């Protein structure tokens, strides 16, 4: 006992290094790969960013005395016949959910070391993501050119509609675009054997990229509910 106590006293450092040692107590809190823990913490910070956007949208919509434009009419689209409410947004939602499914499968096949299917499913995910961004470009163009929506006003109602719309969907679209690039890079690395050569065949990066992609889908669930349906 006494010997142990003495030995541990000798190990205690002084000064700054001691302070760091005391604070960290040399423990690992999260029993997951560090990249995964860091991705989760990044996603947590991103949660707060998107929450700020959605909460400011809520404040604007509550505080305005002018009627808010009706999303199901603003985002209606007609294919020759009567306009179908929110149809483009519904298709975009389904595209994003499909991509989330392919991503989940890609992660699974990554752990099974099925290189071919992992690359194929990740490429499909990136492609669906690119499709989503393309549809968003179409949506923005229609709103700006045909319906005259601007960040400072629009012909349908409350002036704050445009600012909220462009900020929220723009920031989300940016995340999807970044995700498409991210997934493409990781898919390329899986396919070219980068992880086999440099990480001893560890494909955990696929899961980390997957976390990011599912988060983008998650944010869309909230945007769809609060901005388009409410």
């Amino acid at each position, binding site marked *: 006992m006494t010997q142990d106590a003495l030995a541990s006293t000798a190990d205690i450092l002084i000064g700054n290094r001691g302070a760091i040692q005391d604070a960290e107590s040399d423990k690992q809190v999260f029993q997951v790969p560090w990249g995964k823990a860091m991705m989760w913490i990044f996603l947590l910070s991103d949660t707060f960013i998107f929450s700020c956007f959605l*909460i400011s949208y809520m404040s604007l919509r509550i505080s305005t005395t002018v009627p808010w434009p009706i999303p199901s009419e603003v985002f209606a689209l007609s294919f020759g016949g009567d306009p179908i409410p929110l149809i483009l947004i519904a298709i975009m939602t389904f595209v994003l959910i499909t991509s989330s499914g392919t991503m989940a499968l890609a992660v699974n096949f990554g752990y099974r070391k099925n290189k071919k299917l992992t690359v194929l499913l990740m490429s499909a995910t990136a492609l669906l993501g690119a499709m989503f961004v393309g549809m968003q470009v179409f949506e923005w163009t229609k709103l700006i050119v045909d319906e005259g929506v601007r960040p400072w006003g629009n012909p349908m109602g409350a002036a704050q509609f445009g600012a909220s719309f462009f900020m929220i969907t723009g920031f989300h679209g940016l995340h999807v675009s970044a995700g498409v690039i991210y997934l493409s890079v990781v898919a390329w690395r899986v396919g070219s054997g980068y992880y086999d050569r440099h990480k001893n065949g560890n494909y955990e990066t696929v899961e980390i990229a997957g976390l990011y992609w599912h988060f983008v889908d998650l944010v869309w669930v909230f945007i769809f509910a609060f901005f388009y349906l409410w």
Partner: protein
Amino acid sequence: MAAQEGHQQHPLSVYFWVWGLLFVLSGFSYAVDYYQLEGYLRWSLILLFMFLKAGFIIAIFMHMAWERLALIYAILVPPLCLLVFIALMAIEGEYIELSRLIAFGPAAEIISTHH
């Protein structure tokens, strides 16, 4: 358990089930708008489908259900403070709307013509 090694390998059927469920729930959300439900029924259904979808994505697709509790707490507890933020901004928003109605609404003109 697999989670202790940081590995997440689960039967494919789980993913297909959740995938299907997300499609069905999205369909329901869309139906809320398509059938033009109004008022508290609309809002509660929107929130219900939203939280169910979010829950399935986080728990299954993001593997949170199989993570250790330390990570779950670290990620899921901090966003709870957003509830306070939402409540505060809702109160603030109502107050601003009221101020605008008093200062710029029809009542304001009556007050200004009397002065």
